[in-house]
């Protein structure tokens, strides 16, 4: 049992997915269907990325953000946000998740820098998933930004003809 974490298990948890369990100390190999395969991890200083060599293939991995036990990585061109949890913290998360699901506010963030062309809705308006909330112009294209959920527009943070940065919160939606 590891002294700091008081456990010999760790869990890698990506949202919407079941956690993967790893036993400490962590080996440089993983087993699939009872067979052990070695994993080689290298850091490539030139590109600032890690290279995972596994089963004859090389996968580039970049660490984008890191906050305590939360990691945002791009693994072979696909983004993942993965939390590493202990058995205790994993249990707490599961309890929390089931209780808070309904009160969450959804934040609609700007997916890229651009200019707001027009806003197609108002505060207090009911909105369906897939309905256009606003038009964001970027890279010469007018992009319709659609509602990801069913809900009510609770707050609009942007105005037409203003610019936004990537990840600026544009609209808040209260889910149904």
């Amino acid at each position: 049992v590891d002294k700091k974490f008081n456990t010999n298990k760790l869990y890698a948890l990506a949202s919407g997915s079941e956690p993967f369990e790893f036993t400490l100390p962590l080996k440089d190999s993983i087993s699939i269907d009872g067979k052990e395969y070695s994993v080689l991890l290298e850091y490539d200083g030139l590109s600032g990325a890690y290279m995972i060599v596994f089963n004859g293939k090389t996968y580039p991995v970049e660490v984008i953000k890191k906050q305590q036990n939360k990691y945002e990585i791009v693994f072979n061109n696909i983004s993942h946000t993965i939390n590493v949890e202990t058995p205790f913290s994993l249990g707490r998360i599961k309890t929390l998740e089931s209780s808070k699901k309904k009160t969450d506010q959804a934040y609609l963030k700007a997916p890229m820098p651009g200019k707001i062309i027009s806003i197609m809705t108002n505060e207090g308006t009911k909105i369906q998933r897939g309905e256009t909330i606003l038009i964001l112009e970027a890279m010469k294209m007018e992009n319709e930004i659609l509602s990801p959920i069913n809900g009510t527009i609770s707050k609009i943070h942007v105005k037409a003809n203003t610019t936004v940065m990537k990840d600026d919160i544009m609209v808040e939606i209260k889910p149904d």
Partner: protein
Amino acid sequence: MAIKKILIANRGEIAIRITQTAKKMGISTVAIKTAVEPNALYLSFADEVYDNTNDTSPISVFLNIEKLITIALQTRADSLHPGYGFLSENAQLAQNCLNNDIVFIGPSPDSIRDMGNKTIAREIAMANGIPMAGGSKGAINSVEDAIAIASKISYPVIIKAVSGGGGRGMRIVKEDSEMAKMFNLATNEAKKSFNDASVFIEKYIENPRHIEFQVLGDQSGNVIHLGERECSIQRKHQKLFEEAPSTALDSELREQMGSVAIKMAKAAKYYSAGTVEFLLDDKKNFYFMEMNTRIQVEHPITEAITGIDLVEQQIRVANGETLSFGQDDVKFNGWAFECRINSEDVQSNFIPTTGRLEKFSFPEYPYLRLDTGISVGTTVTTNFDSMIAKLIVHGKDRDDAIQKCSKILDETQIIGLKTTIPFFKMLFKNKRFITGDFTTAFIEKQVDQYYDFSEEEKLLAAWFVTKLFVEENLETKHINTNQDNKLNLWLMSKRISTF
């Protein structure tokens, strides 16, 4: 050859593409260096670089006709190649070249003007018995008129920019209530993209295939076709993947559509390389959509299966030569794919991404052609469109092309930017795609997930993050070495969530 020196009025991969053919033909090239990307890759391929970094004009030099003519005269270029995009389909540029004794490597100003104006193109097509979808006679000016026409030709209809192209300014309308919103969106986008807000309406052919024919004509009136390109894999009306030939055509239909394409080109008095675009419905009816009067982004797949260098033909035709081969000499060999590697996030509905390219590594094979305008260290910004490379693969047949392309993608590494590569990995495993049974609705309606990510990769990502965490946090790293390290995969769901 009267043409000795070409001014390239473009940037990126197409500028490089033009230098390569010019070099082969013993023609020198001039590239233009701009303040936006003074270290761009294309500059190193040209024989001469015109430094335009001091230009204070708010419009890009590639959109500035007078400036381009001045540069051509100053550098003593006897000809100008416009590439694609920018002013490639601008009749005024072609005309001004003519007026200044600069050979415009493309069709005549009249052909560009006629085909560039979608309502004139429709009139010419109609007068020549080219099959077309029903629609408005000319431009429409109001939502009321739009609704009136839509009720006549029946919904769904599509609003298109009169001066449009490249999928911009197009909106599909399914019922009266959507018309006002879509009409405004289309006119706004048309105004911004083409500096002409006028739009027209056409009957919308549902779930068609987008099939285009490459045509080639000379100034003596000879026109031939070089087969079709299948361009149905699109998102937001923008092509993402093209192949030649198409699984939807047999040799009979190919001949039929090819002869209509030739007829259209002849009606437009067309010379140089051009593209006649059609929609093909599920009953194999085809409708003329538009004619593009430039070299297309996807021209390499036609080059792959015909062995004809289209840029060389453009230069020869501009030089006044007649085509040295006829329709019967055109032979199709194998199957070619083009994957557009765009800096886009397939996990966020193909939204453009930006960043500095830290690694950009592709394998090398005789059947792979990589056309790109960027290299490691390039920062991809929102200044230009999102395409960073074209992967062109030539297989013996379609299955062979799929296998070769999948292997190449597995061996490709891009760091620093998210790209459309995971989309293509999905594509080559998709049943519909493999059987060739898809339409322009493929991306929006016919696939469940825009990217492929294996269980193995998911597991490796989880292991990697755990490894980092352990390295950073654990006090004691080497205890209980005899422990059982078996990994339990709890229920691994088939779907990975999107962020």
